[in-house]
Each structure stands twice: as structure tokens, then as C-alpha cells.
């Protein structure tokens, strides 16, 4: 009878402590996940920013202008067409 009660007490104590531990673990994990998620959002933002930047820099109109003005390129005239 006495041994049973002691055992029950022990079980109650252990589970109480375990609960505290689990709650702590949950919060730590949640915080970790939130940090990772924030990082994900940040990277996503960086990614789209770079994507937009790239598409602005490679826009056909810009490439066309740079080729003409900076690189002095011209369209092939009649006699300049190459054939194999």
C-alpha cells in the first residue's frame, strides 16, 4: 500500500518535470523555426530582388542600346550575311 503510493508520487513528479521539459523544448524549437522562417522570407525577398534586377539589366531594349552605343555593333547589311 505504502510502496504503491510512493510509486505513484514518483510517477507524478517525473511526468510534471517532463512536462516542463517538453514545454521548454517546444518553445526553443518554435523560436528556432521562426528564425529560420524569417531567414527564408529574407532570402526569398533577396531572390526576387535579384530576379527583378536581372530582368531589368537584361531587358531587350537595354541590351539593344548598349550593343549599339557602347559596343558599336550594327545589324548585318546585305553583303555581310554569312552562309555556310
Amino acid at each position, binding site marked *: 500500500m505504502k510502496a504503491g503510493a510512493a510509486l505513484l508520487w514518483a510517477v507524478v513528479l517525473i511526468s510534471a518535470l517532463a512536462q516542463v521539459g517538453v514545454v521548454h523544448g517546444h518553445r526553443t524549437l518554435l523560436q528556432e523555426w521562426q528564425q529560420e522562417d524569417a531567414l527564408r522570407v529574407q532570402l*526569398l*525577398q533577396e531572390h526576387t530582388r535579384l530576379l*527583378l534586377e536581372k530582368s531589368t539589366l537584361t*531587358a*531587350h531594349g537595354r541590351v539593344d542600346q548598349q550593343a549599339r552605343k557602347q559596343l558599336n555593333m550594327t545589324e548585318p547589311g*546585305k553583303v555581310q*550575311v554569312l552562309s555556310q
Partner: protein
Amino acid sequence: MNAQPNQQTTLSGITRWRFTLVLAVFGCLLGAVLVRLVMLHTVDQPFLFEQGEKRTVREEVQPAMRGMITDRYGKPLAVSTPVVTLWLNPQQVNVQQLPAVAADLGLSRKELTRKVERAATQGRSFLYLKRQVQPELAQQVLKRRIAGIYGDDDFRRFYPAAEITAHTVGIVDIDGKGQEGLELAFDDFLQGSEGSRQVVKDLYGNVIKQLKVNAVPQPGGDLALTLDLRLQYLAYRELKAAVSQHHAKSGSAVLVDARSGDVLALVNQPSYNPNNRASLRAENMRNRAIADLIEPGSTIKPFTVAAALSSGRYFPSSEINTAPGFVRVKNKTIRDHRNYGVLDITGVITKSSNVGVTFLAHQLGAENIWDFFSKAGIGQATVLGFPGEAVGSLPYPEQMDALRLATVSYGYGLSVSPLQLAHAYTSFTQGGCRNPVRLLMNNQPQTKCQRVMPEKVARQVLDMLETVTSKQGTGSRARVAGYRVGGKTGTAHKVGQQGYEDSEYTAVFSGIAPISSPDLVLVVVIDSPQGKEYYGGEVAAPVFSRIMQQALRLRQVAPDDGSLPTLQMAGGPA
């Protein structure tokens, strides 16, 4: 000791009953507290629990990232990027702290204070501070840790190609819902599904505890279009230049892959910048190439001729007498530009003879013409799933009397969208067997094509179309150096309030290049050109030439015009 026998006293001389009374009172108090405690834990528990939850537990919606729209090579046309929407609770916020926030966000200090105070007196507990703020700026505001100011994750849509693809891609509203174009048509697909979870939050809106996840956010699907952004750019540039040069009301150009039916470029003027919502005007937002119907005018003649050739009764060399240059049908006179005399079938196309095609149509009959035209896709929906897509119209054979039949044969009394016209022209380039048009890469190309005419006839019509761009033809200005191109000009009177207007035109050019092995079909429509030039051959053909020239080069199509002097590549692979 003067003790009384019926009254017990304690050692200190206080009567026992008083002691008992005090004890009992304390006992009662303790009992009351106990009863209250039990009440709180049992009877009142659900109510209190709910109230507690209401104050700390939040149902949080996590927005899903909207899918990207790209061109056929994956270049972005519409991209969502994470931003933060800042809002405040006027009940919790301290008005003294607002000026600093207003300065951060570039808002008017007075205005903000006034708005918040008014909302607070109205008892509201939600007010947008600023929507769709750059994340860095939002962090700066949130770092002040002002009670009652919160930030929610949100997405903002950007359109890198702006007005160049605006009509096709469309636009979303500030809540990320599709409003126009493909953004509207494929809203469900692009949207994804929002996530939702239950969390415990503190006063600053930080998540302390996650209670339950109801749904994980699923990002939306990506949509790849068949458009080629480079071709789209140059088509837009040339169209815009022509529309402003001729002071036209509007214009459209549709470039279609002659082999597969993929739409490579689809541009309209006027256009709009979807990144700047303040400048939107509804009339600029219509995708004219898909949603507007035009009377195609002479660009329909190749189909009348193809119908005649398919019947087996005519050959390209068959001769028709178009003298004296006009013909009376019922009580209307159908005229040619001038008297062309005897023309062969090729000449009917080269000179764009109304009398010639009227003769052919009357010989074939309404039934045959209707049958052929509808197989070619004229007046048939293109079924792209685009909002506001026009179906067009083609009168049924029983609706066509001799006059209607004659007008249909040269492109009046029926209507098509520029895209339909381009699609119909692919009948000639795909060996007489037409594939459906395709705007989305996600749709698998269909292998079954619709037979419109025998392969031989398609070839014959292509050769006829080439004569239109010869020196004697009406479309000589559509020529492209180095390539054999073919096409057909069209100039249609516009319909006004009292029938056809005398001085309002639609100039059309519909063409194919290169003729030896067709790669591209291009339709250019210029609506209401002002000034001396208004013929399709004068207004639309030069645009066709410029777009086609650059498009062929970009697609690295080998020049097929043998008359052009070329250099032999020295030392290269033979």
C-alpha cells in the same frame, strides 16, 4: 479564583465560546475562498478560459506566395516579393509615439495622429498604418517596439516587363487577387492556398507559443507562357512607333509560330504600366488582339482563293475576267481599284481584286465558303481561356445572299480578332492542317490537327502571297531584305453610326515568312490611322517588315532569298 461552574475559561481568562466563534468565522472565510476556487475551476472555467484565449490566442493567416508568370524561356513577367503590411490597434497605441513612426514611413504626422485619434474614439481596434512596406523599413518601425503596432507578412506583385506584357499577363489588386488577363483567368492556380495556425502572442505581436497548425501555406503554381519576351519587346517597340507616327487610335500585333501555333508575341497599343496603379485607365487595359473584333477586309481573300483551289475546279493559272473593274450584285456595286482586265488566280491575290474573289465566291456557293472558312477558324473561338476572348462571327450559309456572300469573300460582314486571323493564316504554313493556338506552355501541344485544305493548295497559296510583296503587289513595303516573305494587305472601312465611315479605316497586314519554310506568322492591325496614309500596304506593312526582320534574325532563321549576295564563310565547316 472566582470561577463560574458553567463557563469554561482558558488560561488567559477568555471564555471558550468566543475563541470558538473566531475560529468558526475564519473557517467560514476559508470555506468561502475554497468554494470560490472550486467555482472558478469548474463552473466558470469554460467562460474564463474562452476570455483568456480571446486576449492571447490569435488565429494567424499565413499568406501563400503567388506563383510566377514567365515567358517561354523562364524570364519573369510577374513576380511576387515578400513585403510587410503594418497595422495598428488605436486602442493600444500611445499617440505620443506616432510622430516618429510617421517620419519613418514618410506619412504626414498630423494626418496620422488625427486618423488614429478618430479611430480610437470610434472604438475601432484595427487601422492600416501602411500596406506593402519594404521589409527593411518595416523592421525599422517594428524595432521601436511601440505597443499596438504590428506587422503582417504579405506579398507584392511586380511586373518587370511592365507595359510590354501588361495586356496578356494582366494585373492583381492590392489584396493579390487577379483582376485582368491571365492573372484573373488562372487566379486559382497562381494563388496557392493560405496557411492558418493558432498562436499565443504578446503585446508586441511576437509569437510565444504555437498551439495548432490548421493548414500549411502552399505556394501557387508557376505559369509559363509561350511568349518570347525578346520578340514581345521588339514587336511592342515597332507597333508603338507606328501608332504614334500615324496618330492612330490603337494597334495590335500578333506573332505566332508558324509550325506549332505558339503565340510568340502579342502586343497592343495603347498600353499601361501595371506597377503603377494610380495611372490605370480602363480603356488602355483591354487586350485588343484577343478581345476586339475587326472586319479583316482583304486579308480574307487568300481563304476565298484557297477554297476555290481546294474545290479542284480552279488552278493558280485559271483566268478570270475582271473587266470592267466593277460588278453589280443586287443593288450594290463592288469595285476594284482600277480595271485589271483578265487576271489569273494568282493575279487576283497580287492585285487584291474584289471583283475576282466575288466571282469565285459566287461560283463556289455559300455552303462551300462557309464550310471552308469555319474549318480555317474564322469566327471560331480560339479557346485560350482568356477573359473577354472574342469569338468573332461568320454568317451561316442560309444568312448569306448573293451580296453578303460577295462581301464575305473580301472580308466584310464577318469579324475576327487579330489573334484569330493569325491563327487562320497558320493553315497555310502547316501544310493545310491547322494546330490550335497555344498561349501556355503548361498545355501540352495537341498532336491532332484540323485539315483545312490539301497540302498542295497551301503551298500554292503561299506562293501567291509572296507575289503580294513583289514590286507589282499591294504589300511591297512588307518586304524583308534577305528573306522571301508573303502576306496580304487589308484596308477596311470602320463601322460608324450611319454604316461604313468614309474616312475611318482599319489597316491590316497579315503575313508569313520565310516562304520557303514558314517560321513565323504575323498580323499587324492599326486602327484609325490619321493622315494621308491609311492603306494596309502603307501603314501596317512597314511595321510587319520591321518586326519580321528583327524577329527572323533573333530566331536565327537562315535567309532564303537567293538573289541576295552572300559571303562564303572562310575555313568554316562546309
